[in-house]
Structures are given as structure tokens and as C-alpha cells.
């Protein structure tokens, strides 16, 4: 309701003098409620009640879906082929576009001054990952690569070449890592895991790339996409950008084998050598 300034007090006066809102004063917006169709009543709803004229349509004896009068139906005539064979066993990666990532950063839901992890993305409700539906994590998609302009240290499970180029062009760092389903479940919901009282498990390790080859690949990508590779070591956030998880680590700052006690806000670490050896291997 836009009132000019002069009548502001008048509006307030009116508002104060109006009667109390009750069911007697309320009415739905015109067009909000549509009257239902009552079949078999009246000139338009009655007679054949919208069923048509004679035949299977009116009598309700139409054959099943897919039946084509006796001829071999389409769904039986086409030969089988294993397009969807084993579809429920294929690993899936929830796509995250750079556009959405930029949106999250702009709104402050994702903090680029700390390493961005799947936990951060799920906390920000940027992605929804369902490990029980064969999701193995998140993949970066290069939609929005042209508007992406944030320097972040991000860790995802898969990334397209364009996405990697976009992130590195802005001086960021991208890492791809593997999380097995159990570790993924722990990663996206850390607090319910800590309430379980179990020691943090070792992540099943994925394949590590050669650091020299990574550097070469970064240079090659910069040449391919036509930007100069910025030198990260000269950056003031270099320490944050160089933070990377160990192969067996699920959380930054927490090692496998530790038990986090939420009510007392304590971390318990094992002292037995065998346990230590197991959790460090």
C-alpha cells in the first residue's frame, strides 16, 4: 500500500479505527478459489457427466495402457537393450555449477576465506547429496564460468576442465578427492556422526596425482583457455590456499581415530601403539 507522505497519519488513523479481523471480514482474492466440478449435477455437469457418447469411454471398459487393439504394441515390438542395466549401481555426482557457487559466495553462505569443502557446501544448503542413492559426491560444472570471479580453495569429487580453468584463472585452488560412501555420509552430516561416539574412520584412499604433473597440467590448461596462470605463492592467502586434506583424513583439523565428545566439547585420542599404527597407515 503506497500512500504519499501527507496522508501517512490519515492511513494510520484508518488502520487504528478498523474493526478486528475475523472470519466475517475476510474474503479470498478474486480468482484464488475455483469452484469444483460436480459431475452428474445440473445442465453442464449432468447427462453423460463428461464421459462422452457410448463405447468404452463412457462405459469405463477401456483396455490397459499400451494396448493397441491387438497389434504387437510398441513397448513389446522394440527389442531390449541394456541402456539402463545396472543403473542403480552407477556412481552419481551431484552437479554444482560455478554460477551457483558464485551465488552462494555472494550471499555469504560459503566463506571463501577458508577452504571450501563438501561439508561447507551442505551447511550452506548449496547442494544436497544423498549417499544412500549412490551419490559419491559433487562435481563442478562449468556453467557460469564466464561470471565466476572468486578466489577459493575448493575440494570436490569431480570437475570439468572448464570449471578447473575458471577457478585457477581467478587464482584459486581446486582439488578432487575420493570419498567412499561411509566417509561421505560422515562428511555431509558431521554432528550426527559425532553423537554416535565412534572414532573417526580412515577414508578409503583414492589415487594421488604427481605434483609436478599437476603443475604442468595447470600451465597447459592456462595456455588452452587463454589466461596467465597467477602465482599463488605470492598471494597473502597462500597458507589457506595450500591447505589440503591428507589422503586418509575426512575433516580438516581432525585425524582418523579421534573421538569427538560433543556435550563436553573435548577430543579423545587413542594412545595404544597398535591403534595409532592402524589409524596412521
Amino acid at each position: 500500500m503506497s500512500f504519499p507522505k501527507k496522508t501517512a497519519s490519515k492511513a494510520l488513523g484508518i488502520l487504528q479505527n478498523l474493526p478486528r479481523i475475523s472470519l466475517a471480514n475476510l474474503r479470498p482474492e478474486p480468482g484464488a478459489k475455483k469452484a469444483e466440478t460436480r459431475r452428474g449435477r445440473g445442465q453442464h455437469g449432468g447427462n453423460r457427466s463428461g464421459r462422452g457418447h457410448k463405447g468404452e469411454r463412457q462405459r469405463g471398459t477401456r483396455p490397459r495402457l499400451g494396448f493397441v487393439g491387438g497389434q504387437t504394441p510398441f513397448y513389446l515390438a522394440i527389442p531390449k537393450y541394456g541402456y539402463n542395466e545396472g543403473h542403480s549401481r552407477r556412481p552419481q555426482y551431484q552437479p554444482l555449477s560455478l554460477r551457483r557457487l558464485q551465488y552462494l559466495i555472494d550471499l555469504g553462505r560459503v566463506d571463501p576465506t577458508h577452504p571450501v569443502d563438501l561439508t561447507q557446501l551442505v551447511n550452506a544448503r548449496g547442494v544436497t547429496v544423498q549417499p544412500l542413492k549412490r551419490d559419491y559426491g559433487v562435481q563442478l560444472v562449468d556453467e557460469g564460468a564466464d561470471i565466476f570471479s572468486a578466489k577459493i580453495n575448493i575440494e570436490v569429487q569431480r570437475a570439468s576442465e572448464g570449471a578447473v580453468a575458471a577457478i585457477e584463472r581467478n587464482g584459486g585452488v581446486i582439488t578432487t578427492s575420493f570419498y567412499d560412501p561411509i566417509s561421505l555420509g560422515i562428511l555431509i552430516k558431521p554432528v550426527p556422526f559425532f553423537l554416535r561416539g565412534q572414532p573417526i574412520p580412515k577414508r578409503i584412499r583414492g589415487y594421488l596425482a604427481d605434483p609436478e604433473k599437476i603443475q604442468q597440467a595447470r600451465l597447459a590448461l592456462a595456455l588452452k583457455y587463454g589466461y596467465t596462470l597467477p602465482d599463488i605463492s605470492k598471494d597473502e592467502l597462500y597458507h589457506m590456499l595450500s591447505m589440503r586434506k591428507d589422503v586418509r583424513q575426512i575433516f580438516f583439523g581432525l585425524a582418523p581415530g579421534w573421538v569427538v565428545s560433543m556435550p563436553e566439547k573435548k577430543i579423545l585420542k587413542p594412545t595404544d601403539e597398535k591403534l595409532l599404527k592402524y589409524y596412521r597407515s
Partner: protein
Amino acid sequence: MANGERGIVGATFVSPPGPSCGGTKMAASMLCRRTAALCRTLKGISCSKTVLSADSPRGLPPQSASYNPRPLRLNLHRPHIPDKDSEKTPEWQKSSRYDRKLFGRYGSASGIEPASLWPSRAELDRMTAEENEWQPPLEVMLKNVQAREEEETQRRLAKEKLIAANMAKMPKMVADWRREKRESKSKLKEEKSRRAKLLAEARERFGYALDPRSPKFLEMVAEIEKEEKKKKKLVKRRLKDEQLAAPPVAPPAASS
């Protein structure tokens, strides 16, 4: 902290060395409370002020928005810890899994020995054995793969060698087979002609078409064979005589 914060709980309370230098999220977790209040007041408007790049840090840490954490409902004032000794408590409340959950919910107030949270020796051995079997290190896996590929290639090479050797033999075998066929054909032809000749002979002798299976025919055949044998013997003898005559003549001629 009654409202129990979410996000990375991590190293706010302990400063661990860890396997790799991990990051701490102190700033953000402490900011959560402030920005939650801020977000409530600025309802629809974005709560952040340029978190984009820390190129120009303005003294204040950049504010970030977050969702309010769900209340944990831990019942810390009146924890329900079941009595282990009584019979009324169900079995599942006396198991080690439930003990771990109790510890996770109530901490040391649950009265559970923290050492029991980790796997025992036997369980640890089982876990290590399982890992060694199902998650071998990369070198072992690569070696296995290499061994398997080697075996495959060996098998394939052996097969190809066998095929090559057999193919090399093929021309000879083909020629042999063709020769065999030809010989058998010619033998058949010979046989046929011989039988025809004999039949003609019998026809001549006896004057009518004699059945080859009859005894007369067989006698006739026997006679003819005898005559042929005699002839052959005579021929052989003549050859021998000639040979005996020829060599003694030649050496004396050569020696003299």
C-alpha cells in the same frame, strides 16, 4: 553452548598437529551467532558484505550467513542411562554400540569407559586383515594387473604361434590330401577296370554274363592270378640272370 552449533566442530578446542595441517574454522563458527542475529533482522536481504575476495581485508573479518542449527535435544540434565545389571533392560541397551551412542550423547556423564569406544585387539586384527585383503596398496594392485596382463599376452602369443605353425604346415597338408584323393580315385578306377576286364574275360570264356559272386567266376579269377604270378616269377628270374651276367662283365672290363 546450549544451542549446540553445527558446522565443523573441529579444532576450536584442541590444537592437534594432525596428519596434515588442517584448517580451523574459529572465525566462522563464532561469527555464526552474530550473523544469525543479523540475518533475522534483515529478513530477505542478503546478509553478507562482499565476502568475495580477501584482497582488501577491512580489519573486520568478512561476515557470512549461515542457517540456524537444529536444536540437538540431548537431555543433558536428565540423561537416561540404562541399568546394565538389571534383567528388565532390553539386550540392545547393553550392547557396545549403544554404549558408544550413550557416550556420544552424554559424554563422561554416561559413565562409560572411553577406552571401550575404540576397537579391541581382536577386532583390530580383523579390521587389518580385511583391509589387507580388500584394499591392497597401489603397488600390489599394479603388480597384480601387470601379472594378469602378462598371462593374457602369453596365452595369446602361444595361441598365435600354434596357429602360425599349423598354417605353415598347411600347403604340405593340402598337397598331401590332394594326392591322397587323386590316388584313391585312380585306385578306384583301376579296380573298376580290372573288374570289367575280368567280367569280359569270364564272358568270353563261358559265353554268358556270369555273376561275379558265383564259384565259377572265383575259380577263373584264381587261375588268372596264378598265371600272372608265374609270369612275374619268370620275369624276375630273367632280370636276376641279366644282373648277374652284367656286373661280372663290367668290373673285369673296368679293372683291366
